């Protein structure tokens, strides 16, 4: 009896523990509910009174297949324990998931006379699983979309290709087999600078996303441009363990851009030429306005004066002044014609000029002056001994510059004239003529230095034509001329010769 009591007490304890911890229901062998505990009522939202005597299917959610339910019943009807996860329906229609163990209680014939169902609420876990499944599905959808739309490659942290999609193979013209296990540099075009590539690697190695445009090389050696986003995947230490590169083909756009760039450059060149021509035209108008109009006015004023003059001696005195003005007008006119001829002679060919020979010839013309002034002429032509330029222009240019250096020598010192050539980038040669003469105040005369009939020194032979012609000849060959000068120290004239690669 005492033993029985102890056993009963123990059973009561177990039942209590079970009721506290689990959702418990007991049905008869037909499935009619005989007992439910508080946990069952809480989760199913029915009261015990509403449940007792009801078929257990009252909480059936209809979620599980017939086969599933049949298997459950076959198991327990055969006296075996069934374990599984069930989705049930509460009174208010909401569903809940329970981890379920159904234990059949057998009579002496080993037939179940009741079933004890012990459940625990796994709704949250199930929801988590569902969410995870959805997320996984979404991810795989994304991956599908990405693979369909973009060029995708994955490399390990060292840049070894571990995955490529079809688009990648199509554009790179390699097969998957040829790519997997290869260094990603297999598609390197060599177009980008070391700094550029270094910046890319620094960015992604630091776990940051890199975006940019890359020129890659396909298997057949052709280039293609891709808009690229590289996303580092980080491990728990926040170190990249792989890189996913997502690209899109922008080759056509790049081609278009190149074309636009080229045509832009051309447009700029044309605009520049037009600007130059325009400036020359304005110059020309000014020349006509200043240099031709002035002598014409002189003639007109002289004639007017003679007409109204009563005194015969004075008339004659004024009359003789007309001729020099006409001569001057003719001279300016001829200079202008000469400069226009240069501008129009666009067909003139560049000759191969050995500068040493050319200078020897030019300097011979100044022999007397050089001797008289004890001028020191220094040549430094080794850097670029040969240039390509029309013979008659270069002779005229050198004559003008050397003539100026001698004409405007300082009275305080013997002239030193240095003629130097220097090779520059882009097939350009710069020739310079440096003297230690009077110099020109460039602050005062900067805009005027190469204009016609502008003089800067009181010299009887200063006409203001030499530098104007020199500039015209240099510009006719697309060259440039400029000067550096300081009063009382001397001047250097620079001429840039273009297209010296012939």
């Amino acid at each position, binding site marked *: 009896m005492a033993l029985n009591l102890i056993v009963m007490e123990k059973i009561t304890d177990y039942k209590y523990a079970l009721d506290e911890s689990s959702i418990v229901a007991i049905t008869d062998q037909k499935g009619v509910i005989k007992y439910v505990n508080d946990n069952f009522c809480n989760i199913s939202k029915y009261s015990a009174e509403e449940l007792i005597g009801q078929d257990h299917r009252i909480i059936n959610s209809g979620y599980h297949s017939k086969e599933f339910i049949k298997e459950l019943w076959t198991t327990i009807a055969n006296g075996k324990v069934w374990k599984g996860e069930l989705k049930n329906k509460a009174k208010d229609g909401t569903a809940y998931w329970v981890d379920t163990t159904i234990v059949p209680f057998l009579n002496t014939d080993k037939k179940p006379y009741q079933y004890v169902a012990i459940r625990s609420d796994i709704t949250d876990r199930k929801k988590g699983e569902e969410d995870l499944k959805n997320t996984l599905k979404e991810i795989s959808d994304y991956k599908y979309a990405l693979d369909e739309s973009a060029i995708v490659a994955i490399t390990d942290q060292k840049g070894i290709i571990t995955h490529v999609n079809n688009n990648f193979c199509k554009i790179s013209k390699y097969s998957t087999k040829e790519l997997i296990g290869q260094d990603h540099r297999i598609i390197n075009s060599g177009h980008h600078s070391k700094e550029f590539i270094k910046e890319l690697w620094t960015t992604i190695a630091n776990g940051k996303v890199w975006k940019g445009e890359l020129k890659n090389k396909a298997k057949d050696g052709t280039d293609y441009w891709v808009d690229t986003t590289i996303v580092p995947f980080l491990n728990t230490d926040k170190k990249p363990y792989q890189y996913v590169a997502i690209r899109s083909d922008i080759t056509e756009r790049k081609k278009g851009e190149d074309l636009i760039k080229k045509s832009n450059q051309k447009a700029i060149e044309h605009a520049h030429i037009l600007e130059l021509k325009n400036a020359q035209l304005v110059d020309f108008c000014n020349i006509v306005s200043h240099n031709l109009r*002035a002598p014409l006015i002189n003639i007109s004023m002289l004639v007017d004066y003679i007409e109204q003059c009563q005194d015969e001696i004075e008339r004659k005195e004024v009359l003789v*002044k007309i001729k020099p003005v006409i001569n001057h007008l003719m001279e300016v006119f001829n200079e202008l014609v000469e400069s226009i001829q240069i501008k129009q002679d666009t067909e003139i060919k560049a000759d191969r000029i050995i500068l040493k020979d050319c200078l020897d010839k030019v300097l011979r013309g100044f022999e007397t002056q050089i001797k008289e002034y004890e001028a020191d002429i220094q040549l430094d032509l080794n850097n670029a001994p040969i240039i390509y330029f029309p013979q008659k222009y270069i002779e005229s240019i050198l004559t003008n510059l050397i003539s100026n250096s001698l004409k405007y020598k300082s009275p305080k010192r013997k002239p030193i004239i240095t003629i130097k050539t220097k090779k520059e980038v882009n097939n350009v040669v710069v020739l310079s003529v440096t003297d230690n003469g009077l110099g020109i105040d460039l602050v005062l005369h900067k805009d005027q230095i190469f204009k016609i009939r502008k*003089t800067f020194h009181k010299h009887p032979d200063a006409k203001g034509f030499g530098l104007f012609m020199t500039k015209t000849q240099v510009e006719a060959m697309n060259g440039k001329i400029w000067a550096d000068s300081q009063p009382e120290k001397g001047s250097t004239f620079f001429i840039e010769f273009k297209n010296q690669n012939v």
Partner: protein
Amino acid sequence: MTTIKTLTLVDDDDIFVFLTTKIIEQTNLVDLIKVFGNGLDAINFLKENKNNVDALPEIILLDLSMPIMNGWQFLEKYNKLNPTIGKKITIYICSSSISPDDITRAKTISEVSDYIIKPITKDKLIDLIKKL
């Protein structure tokens, strides 16, 4: 019946200077005609005589295109010098340039009273002197 003491020509054109001098002489309105062949000589003279009111001209006829220092550069220097000069000097630009740029530019310089396009006639000269 002289009206002004000194008129200054700043011009490098010998013929223009010769004829203008003759015309002015005929008007009998000017005591002394001073000529400078470029802007620098003129500005240096003004600097040296800025306190010598008698030596300073009443009128300057200024050419634009000249060697060494042109008319515009002269006007720049004159602008700085002007406050220190003890006399009102009336400046006319007298140029052969018919460029609208030059004429517009002249209008922006307060020291310039007018822009005269060469040739200058006797009547115009008389007008200028009498207007003073």
